[in-house]
């Protein structure tokens, strides 16, 4: 009984979500000003053939700086977690 109810609620939820999503314009965005600007001017302004790289590293360079910092911090965290214990140091058990 509970499983049936759960399935019905799930079906209703995803059905509603799909119904709402069907109305969204997909592949035909209304505002393409930004895309057109990048496609037209990226090569001339950055000199890079790869428009994706020119966006990631030039137009949105500050964002990529944050990404690189996040990676650095993640590696720091892994290094702290997997470090060797010092002499006489014990794992905390509780």
């Amino acid at each position: 009984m509970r499983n049936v109810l759960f399935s019905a609620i799930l079906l209703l939820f995803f059905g509603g979500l799909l119904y709402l999503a069907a109305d969204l314009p997909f592949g035909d965005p209304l505002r393409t000003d930004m895309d057109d600007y990048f496609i037209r001017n990226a090569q001339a302004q950055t000199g890079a053939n790869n428009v994706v790289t020119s966006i990631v590293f030039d137009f949105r360079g500050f964002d990529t700086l944050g990404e690189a910092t996040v990676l650095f911090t993640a590696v720091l965290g892994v290094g702290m977690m997997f470090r060797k214990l010092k002499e006489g140091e014990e794992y905390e058990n509780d």
Partner: protein
Amino acid sequence: MKMTKIVRTTADLFFPFCLVFGLYVVVHGHLTPGGGFQGGAVMATGTALLLVARAYDDVTGRIRKGAMKVCEAAGLLIFLCAGFSGLFAGRPFMANWLAPDGALFRTSIAHGPNAGDLNTAGLLPLLNVGVGIEVLGGLTVILLYMLSGIKEEKKK
């Protein structure tokens, strides 16, 4: 744990090609799909290959953890220095001041499809190389830390 000789030889054979292909993806980041992040990940894959084919102690002789830590920090420093270099040229932070008429990577390209020249895009190759070195170092350090438990099993 050690794999058979066939696997070990294949891994040894593929390791340099992994590095070279990753370097290619990094250096051609402004021309072809890919870039610093992707190329660095490809290079770190070589380490993973060696680690699963050989024992951990066998690999640390070739790939040193300390050197990889230095790589990681150096990559981020290259990125930051390249970003701050715009300030000295009288442009904003992270501005691509090399692109139109700098000293390096200055060849201008035609609009639309073209053959592609490595010597273009101003600051982007430098940033790509910085990120590539950082990702190579970071992922390799993570792999070495997490797979350091792989040791040769002693038969009782």
